[in-house]
């Protein structure tokens, strides 16, 4: 008989409780066969009844032993609520139920003496998203003609690269009286205002990563949406580097500097320049912390591309050897501009922070014309693995920070020169177009998005603690794992198709928002188009309050 003691972990401590209907279960085994967390198991239960059926007391014992499915109570094999059991059960006999009385993280810390880690996003949403409190409130009615989203042509491109002010363009008149460029212009790529962003080949399964790359190429070549994908920090497969599709890929360099040996060595074989280079300083999901790839996900090909053995891979929280903004510009911007002979734009990504405006102000000076973009990542960004304390308790919301940066540029009259790209929870309410449009109106040139892509691919997690097991290497749908048995669950074509379809829809929806404000190009900074029903949001963002 198993004993139960006060300090033993119990079912009511767990995030999720398995609701099992014994009378509906045929013990087909599908739930237990498909749960990668081993959070449920087959067991036997006793049934015992002592009854009297005579007219005088006469004990009769009924004794049965019944095979059942039971929840595993463990600090390690605990139910994540992914719901695969529910999906595969033919009889609606089993499902995870959220336990609002759980105290799992406290128990976990008290038992294991280790910070609780997980993947996903901030799960501490308390008062709703700022972007959802903003509406597109300026509709062209009698004032000026609105456009027709379906039938008008729109120029939906955003700059990635250093845009010079008109008076800075190095023009001169040549001997024939023609205007000619004295020097090369800094490279600028005019791309779709949404970048698929920053998820590494270690964090994602190879199928997931490749599906993203395929979707990106497809959107460019078959649909005509000039979207770009950022590689994330973790290297890029050489076959991609040598292919023509490299032109759709933004290469990332982060503090771990993973994968750059192969990138550099592939340079002589590149048939196209990459779309850009993104220097990652920090990320919104866990600012102040570096990348974290648990050993369980460091598969052979990851080891090879990254040039490291199997181990927990912790990227340093900062770039070793960078101590100031000036140094960053000198070392990182200059070197990566030079690496591609000043033909490829180089931008930088930081976690949104109280200090972002100072950084941006500093970069805006950019006397060398080598700062090709400022990427700001807010608190609602997702991640494959992080300490929960970082996920839930560090970071800065993106909306006001983006707005502050835009206004800082405006103040200097330099808006648009170093493009602003914003992220962190984009598409969290499932509508990327709405978020993109609002951010653009607030001053972003574009946005970048990651987690939504995974959710389109089949991720079952959400921001209320469902699944969030990206760090375990046991992703039940094969997205955040390198384990072949699990990766094979993912349909690479279907994933790419879902993402392509989503962006076709987003493209329509963006136009649906651009048309009524009457913009046929991106309404960067057109905050007059926005209103907020929340007075403090309106005040903070300097947009109209409406009620």
């Amino acid at each position, binding site marked *: 008989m198993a004993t139960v003691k006060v300090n033993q972990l119990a079912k009511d401590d767990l995030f999720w409780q398995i609701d099992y209907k014994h009378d509906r279960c045929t*013990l*087909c*085994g*599908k739930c*237990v*066969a*498909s*749960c*990668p967390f*081993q959070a449920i*198991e*087959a*067991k*036997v*239960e*006793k049934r015992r009844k002592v009854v009297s059926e005579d007219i005088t007391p006469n004990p009769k*014992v009924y*004794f049965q*032993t019944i*095979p059942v499915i039971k929840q595993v109570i463990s600090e390690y094999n605990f139910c994540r609520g992914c719901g*695969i059991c529910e*999906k*595969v059960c033919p009889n609606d006999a089993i499902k995870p139920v959220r336990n609002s009385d759980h105290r799992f993280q406290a128990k976990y810390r008290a038992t294991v003496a280790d910070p609780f880690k997980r993947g996903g996003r901030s799960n501490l949403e308390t008062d709703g998203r700022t972007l959802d409190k903003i509406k597109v409130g300026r509709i062209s009615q009698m004032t000026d003609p609105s456009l027709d989203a379906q*039938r008008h*042509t729109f120029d939906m491109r955003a700059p990635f690269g250093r845009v010079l002010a008109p008076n800075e363009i190095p023009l001169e008149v040549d001997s024939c009286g023609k205007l000619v460029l004295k020097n090369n212009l800094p490279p600028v790529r005019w791309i779709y205002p949404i970048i698929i962003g920053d998820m590494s080949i270690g964090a994602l399964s*190879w*199928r997931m990563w*490749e599906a993203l*790359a*395929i*979707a990106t*190429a*497809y959107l460019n070549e*078959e*649909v005509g949406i000039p979207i770009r994908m950022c590689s994330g920090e973790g290297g890029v*497969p*050489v*076959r991609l580097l040598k*292919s023509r*599709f490299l032109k759709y890929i933004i290469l990332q360099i982060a503090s771990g500097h993973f994968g750059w040996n192969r990138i550099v060595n592939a340079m002589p074989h590149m048939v196209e320049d990459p779309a850009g280079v993104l220097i990652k300083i920090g990320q919104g999901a866990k600012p102040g912390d570096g990348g974290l790839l648990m050993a*369980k996900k460091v598969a*052979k*090909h990851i080891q*090879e*591309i990254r040039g490291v053995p199997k181990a927990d891979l912790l990227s340093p929280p900062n770039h070793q050897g960078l101590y100031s903004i000036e140094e960053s510009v000198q070392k990182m911007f200059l070197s990566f501009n030079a690496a591609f002979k000043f033909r490829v734009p180089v931008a930088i990504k930081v976690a949104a922070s109280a200090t972002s405006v100072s950084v941006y102000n500093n970069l805006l000076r950019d006397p060398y014309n080598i700062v090709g973009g400022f990427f700001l990542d807010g608190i609602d960004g997702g991640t494959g693995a992080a300490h929960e304390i970082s996920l839930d308790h560090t970071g800065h919301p993106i909306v006001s920070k983006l707005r502050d940066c835009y206004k800082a540029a405006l103040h200097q009259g330099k808006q648009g020169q170093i493009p602003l790209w914003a992220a962190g929870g984009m598409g969290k309410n499932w509508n990327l177009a709405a978020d993109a449009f609002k951010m653009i109106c607030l001053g972003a040139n574009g946005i970048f998005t990651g987690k939504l892509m995974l959710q389109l691919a089949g991720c079952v997690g959400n921001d209320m603690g469902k699944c969030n097991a990206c760090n375990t*290497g046991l992703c*039940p749908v094969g997205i955040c794992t390198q*384990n*072949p*048995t*699990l*990766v*094979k*669950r993912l*349909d*690479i*074509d*279907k994933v*790419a198709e879902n993402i*392509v379809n989503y962006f076709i829809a987003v493209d329509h929806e963006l136009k649906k928002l651009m048309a009524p404000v009457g913009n046929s190009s991106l309404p960067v900074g057109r905050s007059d188009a926005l209103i907020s029903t929340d007075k403090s949001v309106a005040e903070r963002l300097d947009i109209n309050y409406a009620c």
Partner: protein
Amino acid sequence: MSKKIYIEGIRNGKRISTQTLLQEIYQALDKGINEIVVDGCGQHDIGGPLWSKDGKPLKFVVKNPGQRVGSMGMQGTTIIVDGPAPADVGWLNAGAEIIVKGDGGDTTAHCAATGKIFIGGRVGTRSGAMMKYDPKFPRPEFWVLKNTGSFSFEFMGGGIAVVCGYDCEEMESVLGYRSCVGMVGGTIYVRGNVKDLSDDVWLMDLTDDDWEFLDKNLPVFLEKIERPGALGKISKRKDWKKIVAKTYEERAHKSFMAINEFRKNKWVEGGIFGDLLYDNYEVAEFVERKDLRLRYPEWLNANYSAPCEYNCPTYIPTQKRISLLRQNKVKEALEMVLDYSPFPASVCGQVCPNLCMDECTRLYVDLPVRIKELGLLSAEIKAKKCETTKDEKVAVIGSGASGLACAYQLRLMGYHVEVFEKDSVLGGKLMQVIPEERLDRKILETEIQRVLDTGVIAHTNVNVDKKKLKELDKEFDAIVLAVGAHNPIVLPVEGSERLVKGLDFLKAINKGEKPKVGKNVVVIGAGNAGMDVVIGAYEMGAEKVVAIDIQKPAAFEKEIEHAKKLGAEILWPCFTEKITDKGVVLKDGTLIPADTVIVSIGDRPDFSMLEREYLDEKGRVLINEYLQSTVNPKIFVPGDAIKLGLFTHALGDGRKVALNIDRMFKGITLSKFEKAPKIPQDKVKNEYYHPMNAQAVSKMQTEDETKRCMSCGFCRDCHFCEEVCPEQAISRIEKSDGNFEYLSDSNKCIGCGICAGVCPCGIWVMRDNIEKYIES
């Protein structure tokens, strides 16, 4: 009789307003006038929606109209514009015939739903947009001699438009740019270059019916706009095309290439990870078979030790013994235990504290399986007849538990074995020391005889000293020094000469010498031997026995209970200061009165037959982990001679030494005979067993323990897995050697683990494919 009026748009050099002009038209209509000639000055909305009271047709002849001439014009109204007209000619035309002899402006025929519009020149942007066809009315027609501006025919839903492209041969597109966007119905006949049409339409050749329509109506059109001479230029069928909207079905799917096709034909060949890993891109389901299972089962019978086996120093696997009983192989079961111990009835059944029962899984249900009683069942089993089949000879010094166990095992293996016993009787401490009360002499003698019956040769009253040992060393191939521990330890305290040695005392009793004791006896040392001394003291007539110890008594609970039942008192911690004629004086000054003080704090072996080099500085024999002398590999030392222990320890040692001697002779590396790990308790499913109360258990036949034994880690062949497996993947295979096994077919198995989850004995084990791949 038509009446006609003129309306001037300019009066007295001043333009009159649209409203004034229209009011005059209404008044004229009220007067029954049905032909109105307007010499306008940009007044709007001339021509509709108007009708005569008597239903007579209305005719307007207009010069210089403003916008929307003929807008909302109705059937029966004819409007002739003599010259050009600005935007919105025939907007929402509801049936009028509108003839513009010059050019039309933007959005000509916009939303025209019926009626005919004839334009003798070109029209502006968005002309023909949103034309419709209401089936209750005649189809609208819109004729243009030259060309249209851009965005023409946007959202056209019905009707016929004809753009003749007269004099437009040089134009890139007679329909302008982005024409026909959103067009869903109607037909446009067009002559001349067309460019940048929307994706919503098809550009097609004319059918005969189409040409018949044009051929018939082109002269009519030209007649209306008074350009009959143009016919020659525009009446060649081959110059004409028609534009129709795609059907709902045709436009429903925008056909993109399938991603799969893109990946296979356009994407990097073999995938971008193709040089790093193999992937055939097959998609697995959540529930899979073979290698794609997350886990797979293995039937690992006897992979774990049952707690009884694990805890038994003699290694007796009671779960296997009971399994044989369960199969009704009673003889085999009772004989099987003899493969491990020659003394199942004496030791297991009587003197052993039965460590096997301490952790019996059955404890989690009710009471442990009665293994002690099982031992007794083997008392009468006859010895196997053994022939000497091997050349090597072994001498065993000492006939205690370890010596006889060793001799017996070696004999079973076919060796010539001789036992040399110093005492006059065989059996060592079993015979010499254990009180009869605890060990039935008849059973012991039967079991010793069984050893002898195998052909073990025993010599009693042989003292093996150095000289004798050297002789034996020459004569025998291996020597087992099972000499036990027969030198009692004496406390080095004042008055120690008064102490009676416990071992000597017990030996004297068993020899029938009836050693004398006083009324009050103190036994120093409350271990198991001490408890035997207590029993002996009472037997010899003591009235009060006190056993003292410096620590918590090491004797088993059962022994202590027995002693207490006889009236003994057990005190601890007690530190002896001295022994006097009054009794034992403790360090704290307490006197425990005693007439006799017996010391029983342990015994040491006597190795006087060994040369000094065999021993360490404390006099202990130097051996390796196989109980083999490190000086002379022929010599093995089991049992109490190494470490004081239980009889079962001695039996286990004796057996292990025998097996290692056999290995030595065969040239096989010696073994420590480590046991399989003890089965985790939760692998054995106590849920299958119905708890019984102690009384009911005690009334059961010992043989019926088969019903209580949970067969830990040893398949009880219940077929539960076979029945419960949802995929029916498990089958039971009978093997040629009479054994059986259960197999799971990986082609059927989904790795659910139900077999492991329900297996009553914990045989099925789930192996982790995920873990396997992570580590690879």
